[in-house]
């Protein structure tokens, strides 16, 4: 830190910005110290500590561990049916959410950028992300009311003759709740990439003989793909790890991975078991999202 301080003292012989920049550039690593130490102490060390507990077994009060490392928690996870069922539910729910949210958000973002007149664009976008302003939990409760057996959604379905369906406390409700969130996340990402598409590119495509659909296929879609992939990755991460929506909308019977993890902590205070779930969740998210993010970069380095 000491080497950074003289820069702000302002008594340097070179008062121009150029001089300051060059001195920082001379020691590029010093500038990273605050960020790196923050991440190290408040993120990396706790996470590594917690995850390392997955190779331990509790002893006594629960925060003491037996000596030595073991794979017992992992063996337990992969042999117990309830565990891998929870894992499968999380996976299926997340994939469905990403799929539905991508389709809906793509249509929404495309409409905002290419169909809604310019002067209404900002407002439309604002309306679509307005739910972000309230708490995630509040929104989940609101969906509880909407999806309840006596709620408006059921009433509507009865009216149109679908009959009474149980939605609340099934994972249909979980998928709906998470999709709503995913749509917002993806719309924001897609809006920003689509907004950046030079309108002359669409004009050039049309001029060179592309019909509307071809322009979409050849120009708009490839150029918006990075936004779609990043948005999908973020939506997957949130859906796979979320605890609130599956609990409030999906009911507590057919549990998902995050519920199993919380259960391990709250009902049995088994830190190693919870850590095992966390470790599996982390690895899954990395395995799924890393290729997606890498794929999205293919389009990123072209202006």
């Amino acid at each position: 830190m000491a080497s950074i301080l003289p820069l702000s003292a302002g008594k340097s012989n070179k008062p121009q910005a150029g001089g300051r920049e060059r001195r920082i550039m001379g020691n590029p690593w010093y500038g990273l110290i605050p960020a790196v130490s923050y991440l190290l102490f408040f993120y990396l060390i706790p996470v590594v500590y917690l995850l390392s507990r997955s190779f331990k077994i509790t002893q006594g009060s629960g925060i003491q561990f037996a000596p030595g490392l073991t794979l017992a928690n992992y063996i337990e996870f992969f042999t117990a049916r309830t565990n891998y069922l929870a894992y499968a539910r999380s996976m299926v729910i997340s994939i469905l959410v990403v799929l539905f949210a991508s389709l809906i958000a793509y249509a929404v973002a495309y409409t905002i950028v290419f169909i809604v007149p310019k002067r209404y664009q900002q407002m439309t976008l604002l309306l679509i992300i307005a739910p972000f302003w309230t708490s995630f939990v509040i929104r989940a409760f609101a969906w509880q009311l909407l999806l309840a057996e006596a709620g408006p959604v059921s009433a509507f379905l009865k009216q149109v003759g679908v009959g009474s369906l149980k939605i609340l406390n099934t994972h249909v409700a979980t998928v709906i709740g998470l999709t709503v969130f995913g749509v917002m996340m993806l719309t924001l990402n897609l809006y920003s990439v689509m907004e950046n598409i030079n309108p002359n590119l669409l004009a050039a495509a049309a001029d060179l003989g592309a019909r509307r659909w071809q322009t979409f296929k050849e120009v708009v879609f490839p150029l918006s793909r990075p936004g779609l992939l990043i948005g999908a990755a973020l939506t997957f991460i949130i859906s796979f790890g979320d605890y609130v929506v599956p609990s409030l909308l999906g009911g507590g019977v057919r549990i998902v991975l995050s519920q199993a993890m919380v259960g391990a902590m709250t009902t049995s205070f088994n830190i190693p078991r919870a850590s095992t779930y966390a470790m599996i969740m982390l690895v899954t998210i990395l395995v799924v999202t890393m290729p997606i993010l890498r794929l999205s970069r293919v389009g990123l380095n072209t202006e």
Partner: protein
Amino acid sequence: MGSNSIVELQDVTKRYGESVVAVDAINLSVRRGEFLTLLGPSGCGKTTTLRMIAGLETVSSGKILINQEDVTYLPPYSRNTSMMFQDYALFPHMSIEDNIAFGLKMRRVPRDERLKKAREMLEFIQLPHIAGRKPNQLSGGQRQRVALVRSLILQPEVLLLDEPLGALDAELRRQMQVELKRNQQQLGITFIYVTHDQEEALSLSDRIVVMNGGRVEQMDTPKMIYEQPRTTFVASFIGRCNLRKGIAEAKEGRLVVFLDAVLGKFPAACFNGVEAIQPGQRIAIALRPEKIRIGREAENCQTKAVGILKYTGFLGSIVRIVVELAPGDEVVVESQALPEAQVGEKISLGWNCDDAIVLTENSGGDK
């Protein structure tokens, strides 16, 4: 408007909303194979006109004909025109050969065939080695060439160019001007070229359409536009010029007796399109700086005047002189030789009646 006109605009108007008229009932007839330039300041409607011809902008009223066929409501892909954009609009996610072959791909030409065509195009612009690159790996000049051949691959009859050299630096610009003109002559394609650079327009065009405020001010060859401007706008937009306002006292044939508040009466010439001047009407005349003679040379001129030399600037090939006729009333003169008079001394000026060009202020100019 015989059969040699390839593009024709009849009272074409473009309105945005209720009040904004970007293009105001313009009429144009573009001849087959010519290099026609739409020249004007930004916001004069030249780009809008070009985009309407391409079909990228809807027409509010009027008609556009290409090859005598009404295309006013045809989409861009049904017109045999091609557009080259100011920012080139190369597809950033495609390789250069895919960019060039795009038009053929849309026509469902098989991949091998269209890539072969694209490579031929790259040979034509002498850049065969960049086929696999992405647009952001090219220099400005290379992008410009690629954009040109991408537009040409479908063999359009009319190429529309929207300030295609605007993004290049001065040196490259001059080089590209020569290249564009050569390509146009080689290929025999009609070019409709939009620019705000008068020098570019003068050097490249067969004919120039000077636009201002959504209207056509004058349409003529570069020489005529320069030597016989019709309006004050054209006279002052193209080249340097001394504008003098006054009254047309009398008219005999194409000569007008011009009454100038400072210089008194002298004859001035009316060219095409301004014959309708009536005696007593307020008019303006243009005097090109290089048409005004100084010192001894002025003695043989039809009109003479005397002023005080205020400034002499040596610019290499010419000398620019500022002469004060009356306080606050100055005339700029461009001469081949340095004046004999010193700054502050009297100097005589002279010009012939054909060099004092009568102008009208018809169109919706802001002058």
